[in-house]
């Protein structure tokens, strides 16, 4: 390195404007941690750069590539697992929150095209007038639509949406070239995932900012129905509700199906801490039915029949809880974030697997947590099944809600992870929800030559290894 740091800042400021690039220590410190700091320690980026458009992104990447400066893309700042915390010195954190245009909402195509700084809340505000909505993750609605969909075809609060919501996108590579995936590569119509050749839309996904910077993404939107009804059914164990979940999914009856324990996510789903949740059965299945006239009534009738034969207890909740469940499922997670307030931080392993293993996942979660000294009442769990349910696909979340201020607890969590990753892999999973260094490490050994191909592929796209390196391998 021959240039001084201030020289770099000047060059970056020349691209994005003086107000939008800095190496000020305090400003950089504000990007130094996320909630995963027990695993990924705080580290300041060297520069924060806030581009306004894709041309500025391109110029910043080209500059960084020439200078071999690491770049960490960052969308709206709702980050977990240390994915935007620098590993290397001299890193540029590319804060894309200024790029917050909703480029298009196409109600006829049921699509939205957005920039990285568009949040789920911003998008719903604009789509609701067409009676459309995005698929929501169980992340705050302040999170980025683009980043969530690009990071992984997301799990969501509405089972009916299926798994993959991304149709196409454009990505700026470190060398300054732009690639467009899906039908976007051929025409001005970005509405189809499969364009020419392999499914590049999928190939570039799930790499947390390690290939390039996605500047625009087109995603599916889903219908909002006026007819809705909610049910809450209590179970004493995680295994018994398997049958009703299977039936509801198999017959495609419910918009949202969520099995949660009575001490964590249920509080957010109901929207209050102030309720005697401890008196409820240990697990609660939350079911939301929706549809057009005629179909809705028919679905609802069948749902009621399945509930009757489920062996569970129908819970009578206040109307307000039902409304909150609707809003959280079909309008973005807001109150669900109350789980963060249970003890002040959370740890979770999110994974995809079949419903058939639900009880076993919970069993191994509880066993491992207790082994490493995590108290029973810190151990939580939920299941979101996903249409079209091939492979009985579900998103599972093995949660531990803990006191973030208890520095000693971090050691327990690290011990938990060390054992649990291997146990889950031994038990059998479809995949991890969220790729990050801590979880890819123990997994890479098990995927054979695919890991080599993956690494080589990244090297082709990013030969100077500037893109968020250290976040996968």
């Amino acid at each position: 390195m021959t240039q001084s740091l201030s020289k770099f800042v000047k060059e970056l400021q020349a691209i994005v404007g003086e107000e939008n690039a800095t190496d000020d220590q305090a400003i950089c410190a504000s990007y130094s941690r996320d909630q995963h700091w027990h695993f990924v320690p705080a580290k300041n980026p060297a520069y924060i750069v806030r581009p306004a458009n894709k041309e500025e992104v391109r110029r910043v990447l080209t500059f960084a590539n020439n200078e071999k400066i690491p770049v960490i893309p960052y969308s709206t700042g709702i980050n977990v697992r240390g994915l935007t915390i620098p590993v290397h010195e001299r890193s540029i954190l590319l804060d894309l929150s200024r790029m917050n245009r909703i480029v298009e909402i196409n109600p006829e195509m049921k699509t939205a095209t957005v920039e990285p700084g568009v949040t789920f809340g911003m998008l719903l505000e604009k789509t609701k007038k067409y009676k459309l909505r995005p698929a929501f993750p169980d992340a705050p609605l302040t999170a980025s639509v683009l980043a969530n969909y690009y990071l992984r075809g997301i799990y969501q609060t509405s089972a009916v949406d299926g798994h993959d919501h991304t149709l196409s996108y454009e990505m700026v590579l470190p060398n300054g070239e732009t690639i467009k995936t899906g039908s976007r590569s051929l025409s001005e119509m970005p509405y189809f995932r499969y364009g020419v050749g392999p499914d590049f839309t999928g190939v570039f996904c799930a790499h947390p900012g390690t290939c390039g910077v996605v500047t625009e993404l087109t995603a599916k939107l889903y219908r909002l129905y006026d007819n809705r009804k909610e049910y809450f059914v209590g179970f004493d164990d995680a295994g018994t509700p398997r049958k009703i979940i299977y039936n509801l999914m198999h017959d495609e009856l419910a918009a949202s199906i969520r099995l949660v324990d009575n001490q964590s996510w249920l509080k957010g789903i109901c929207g209050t801490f102030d309720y005697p949740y401890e008196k409820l059965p240990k697990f609660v299945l939350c079911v939301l039915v929706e549809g057009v006239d005629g179909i809705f009534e028919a679905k609802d009738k069948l749902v009621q029949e399945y509930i009757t034969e489920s062996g569970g207890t129908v819970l009578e909740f206040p109307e307000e809880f039902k409304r909150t469940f609707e809003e959280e499922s079909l309008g973005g997670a807001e109150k669900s974030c109350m789980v963060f307030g249970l003890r002040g931080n959370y740890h979770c392993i999110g994974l995809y697997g079949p419903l058939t293993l639900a009880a076993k996942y919970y069993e191994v979660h509880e066993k491992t947590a207790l082994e490493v000294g995590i108290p029973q009442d810190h151990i939580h769990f939920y299941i979101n099944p996903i249409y079209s349910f091939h492979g009985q696909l579900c998103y599972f979340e093995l949660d531990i809600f803990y006191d973030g201020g208890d520095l000693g607890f971090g050691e327990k969590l690290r011990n938990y992870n060390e054992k649990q990753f291997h146990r889950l892999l031994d038990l059998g999973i479809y995949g991890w929800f969220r790729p990050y260094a801590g979880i890819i490490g123990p997994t890479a050994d098990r995927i054979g030559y695919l890991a080599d191909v993956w690494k080589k592929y990244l090297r082709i796209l990013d030969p100077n290894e500037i893109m968020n390196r250290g976040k996968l391998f």
Partner: protein
Amino acid sequence: MEQERKDEILSAIHHCVKCKLCSISSFHPNAEWLPLCPSGQFYGYQAFYAPGRMEIFREILDGEITEPSEGLLKSVYACTLCGACYERCKQITSVELRLPELFEEMRAELVKKGWALDVHKNIAEKIKETRNAYGEKYEYKAKSPDGNADVLYYIGCTARYRVPEIADAMLQIFDKLGIKYRVMNEEWCCGSVLLRTGQVEAAKELMEHNIEEIKRSGAKTVVFTCPGCLMTFEKNYPDMGVELLHSTQFLTRLGGMKVKKQGLEVAYHDPCHLGRDLGIYDEPRAVLSTVADIKKMKREREEAWCCGSGGGVKSAYDEFALWSATERLKEAKEAGAKALVSACPFCKRNLKEAADKEGKGTEVYDIVELVNRSLEG
């Protein structure tokens, strides 16, 4: 800072999971994206939102930040301490520490290191010299008709020297209602601006003086038109055994005012110190509704958008302060209001300045001005 307090603060910082729901108002059930953090919205960097600012505080406490860089000072001081982030956070996470107080302590830490802003140091100097925050050499001419009255009106620096129409209105209301009142012979600045900007030590002498004067007066009730002064007396002063009331509380309690409704369509702007800090939301609306028609804005009460002038921002970052006020004026206009009414001299001053600059004709008042105008005396 004592280790115990430092640990408490660090623990609170560790409990922030950076969901940033603190930066928007309640989303459900109307599904409207309404920003709530003026500082973050204006400056954009994470450092200007509560989660990022807390990380900066962590680095200060851990001794990692050792220089008062421009970014440090701006991120710490370009915050109005409006407390909207805290209101949202406590709905979601039951957070244990009030964020405005946390950020005040952050400023106090900076002051201890000698890193206060020059403009704030100058205010402290002016106060030392003149006993008011504006360095004015003259006194607001307020008669004190009844030296033995139970009610004492604490006017405050801003209503004395920058928006005297508020003090005038309040005094006229007392007269019209036939209420015996007095003002302090020597009213010194309450110390709010010093406390909010971390200059805690400099406020002590002012507080001692005011306590002594009020005790000596024998007043039983102190009335404030300035929520900043009221909040400072409520939270920073020791209990003086007197009742402290905002003008709208005083007028509500009094009741039975003979007022003539003006037919003016107004929006009510909740001052941060009055609303979020003191929980006074209903009385201003009750009083205002007797003299004007209130149009509801989207962000109100606990989730009101700040006018932009508090926490030392007006003196240090006027462009930001006026931008925030302009945003509020837009909201009032969208609500169909012809005037924006507040219950705070500091809010009025900033909102009025923004309205005048904008030149779009939105009128700005304090509640007591409209009451005085409507009061049959």
